[in-house]
């Protein structure tokens, strides 16, 4: 074989190899310990979309952060340095996100948030490589505040745990409610007994209650509240009322109103396909975390159809265009790369044997985020 043929053959092989260039996505999420249900749902929703698309040039690497910030940082380092991923995603908790995202974006990697979207990263800390596909942390609380106002409540009692997400939630509520409060209480992070707070509520003369108590805290509060004889309308963000928590709370959660940007009964084709596909594959109903995972995967796939992550400018533009079928219907990004979307109010109902949510009102239309003006990407 002559040198020329050899060279030609070699270059053909090289071209073929580069055409098969893999895109690697690194998913860091919580798969063990107490908060695992959120990470598991995120992963399952994400992979449902990935597997439906069936692209063999996209590889997803999934790792468990155990809800520890230093492990998340380690994993991010490993994915960036060792596995050479182009895109990171999946973190559930704001404190882990704050540990990982600034460093990852500073190294030129794209980060798409499937859940946590703290205020710092939506305002002054915004970054061209950082997109939030879910919401901005305050949004769902703002919806509850808007609902309280529109329902004519004049004396709500508001409550959240004493940590940054809790402080953000009460601020978000107050921002859209804008009226007088019967009481504002910060509970201890991880607190399980709310008898004292319920006694305060009873004594305060409130006409409604807003609370943000994620995970086991919310389950405890709802059970104790339902048994307390206090019968005030209750509102909160969807985090306290997701599909997993509802089954554990049962009857005590009935009738509660919660703010959410997604519900399984949202009326569009993409959502119907998502819910039925998820139920068929995993034998349970999806939660909003699964919906965000699914949407993030589809957004990524839509961008990959147009550009490669190695061409950062083009890929970023493709992401910003958000040309995909979101399960939330209309979807677009604001200048700080957080969504503009409708936030609804859902009510907890029972369908057969299962507790779930249904939309009863639209609380805020085309909501962006309170920090968009602080972002210098305008």
């Amino acid at each position: 074989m002559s040198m020329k043929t050899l060279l030609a053959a070699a270059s053909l092989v090289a071209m073929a190899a580069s055409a098969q260039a893999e895109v690697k996505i690194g998913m860091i999420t919580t798969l063990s310990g107490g908060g695992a249900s959120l990470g598991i749902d995120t992963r399952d929703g994400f992979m449902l979309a990935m597997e439906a698309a069936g692209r063999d040039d996209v590889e997803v690497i999934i790792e468990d952060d155990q809800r520890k910030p230093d492990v998340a940082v380690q994993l991010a380092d490993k994915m960036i340095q060792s596995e050479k991923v182009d895109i990171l995603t999946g973190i559930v908790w704001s404190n882990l996100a704050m540990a990982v995202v600034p460093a990852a974006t500073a190294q030129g990697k794209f980060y798409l948030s499937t859940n946590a979207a703290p205020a710092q990263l939506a305002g002054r800390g915004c970054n061209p490589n950082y997109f939030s596909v879910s919401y901005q942390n305050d949004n769902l609380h703002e919806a509850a505040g808007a609902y309280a106002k529109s329902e004519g409540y004049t004396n709500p009692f508001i409550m959240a745990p004493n940590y940054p997400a809790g402080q953000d939630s009460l601020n978000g509520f107050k921002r859209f409610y804008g009226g007088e409060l019967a009481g504002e209480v910060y509970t201890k992070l991880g607190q399980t007994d709310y008898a004292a707070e319920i006694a305060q509520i009873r004594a305060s003369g409130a006409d409604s209650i807003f609370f943000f108590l994620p995970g086991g805290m919310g389950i405890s509060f709802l059970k104790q509240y339902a048994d307390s004889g206090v019968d005030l309308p209750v509102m909160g963000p969807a985090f306290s009322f997701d599909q997993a928590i509802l089954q554990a709370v049962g009857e005590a959660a009935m009738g509660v109103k919660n703010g959410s940007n997604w519900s399984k009964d949202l009326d569009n084709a993409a959502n119907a396909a998502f819910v039925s596909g998820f139920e068929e594959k995993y034998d349970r109903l999806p939660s909003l975390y699964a919906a965000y995972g699914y949407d993030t995967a589809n957004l990524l796939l839509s961008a990959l159809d147009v550009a490669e992550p190695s061409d950062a400018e083009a890929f970023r533009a493709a992401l910003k265009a958000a040309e995909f079928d979101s399960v939330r219907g209309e979807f677009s990004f604001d200048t700080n790369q957080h969504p503009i979307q409708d936030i609804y109010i859902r009510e907890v109902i029972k369908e057969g044997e299962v507790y779930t949510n249904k939309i009863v009102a639209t609380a805020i239309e085309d909501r962006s985020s309170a920090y968009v003006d602080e972002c210098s990407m305008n």
Partner: protein
Amino acid sequence: MSPILLAEQVLNGLQSGVMLFLMAAGLTLIFGVMGLINLAHGSLYMIGAFAAAAVAGATGSFALALVAALAAAAAAGALIELLVIRRLYARDHLDQVLATFALILILSEGTRWLFGSFPLYLNMPAGLSGTVTLPGGIVYPVYRLALIAVGIAVALGLWWLNARTRLGIRIRAGENDREMIAALGVDISKLYTLVFAIGAALAGLAGALVGAIQSVQVGMGEPVLILAFVVIVIGGIGSIKGALIGALLVGLTDTLGGVLLPELFKLFTDPATAAATGSAFASMAIYVLMAGVLIWRPTGLFGART
């Protein structure tokens, strides 16, 4: 704050203390008799709650669920004692801490493997739901009153066991001088297994009772474990009376601290900041209490004086 509200908060503090007592009693019994620090006590609490949730879900009966919780926790306790704890009596506290820490990992993830990552449903029986109006106008949930009753019953039962039965004599003797009772012919290993199982059963009972008004999920035992240790240290290790008084003190401090400290700060700043700052200090309150008690009485309130 009105006197009625304050009275209700005091009642809440006492009730949370009584629940802590169930956990602490088992822990102090095990430490007092066997000299063993058992970090896995919180996992036994969790096992009781999960057993109760599983049985209540299958049969619909809360009574059966409680029995299941006692049985499952006692069985788990006996098994752990036979396989692991037995080898730790002669070791120093350090090895005990690490071995039982390892047990926490195994039991927690093992439970998650068996039951999944999602929280389980467990609710109180219909007969105990609802509220009752106490003298003075306090509206109080029936279930919480039932919990107080159970706690007092357990305290009385333990006192009777300790003071009036042969087993109690052996337990008290064992706390005092292990070698002697072995020399006197008491089967130490059976005694230890029994005591461990009783302690475990108490933890499991607490888990089931409390799980009905809180959430049943993996990791629910660890926060309670720390609190239980705080209680037995304040009360004095090995003393059931100390565990009860310590538990009530911790319950009251925790509840009243959370309620009164924000009020205190409201005198200085606006409500939102007062709420946040007050809550910050309230979360430290019981640790400040424990440090204070230990500085004043280095072996706890009713612990053996060295």
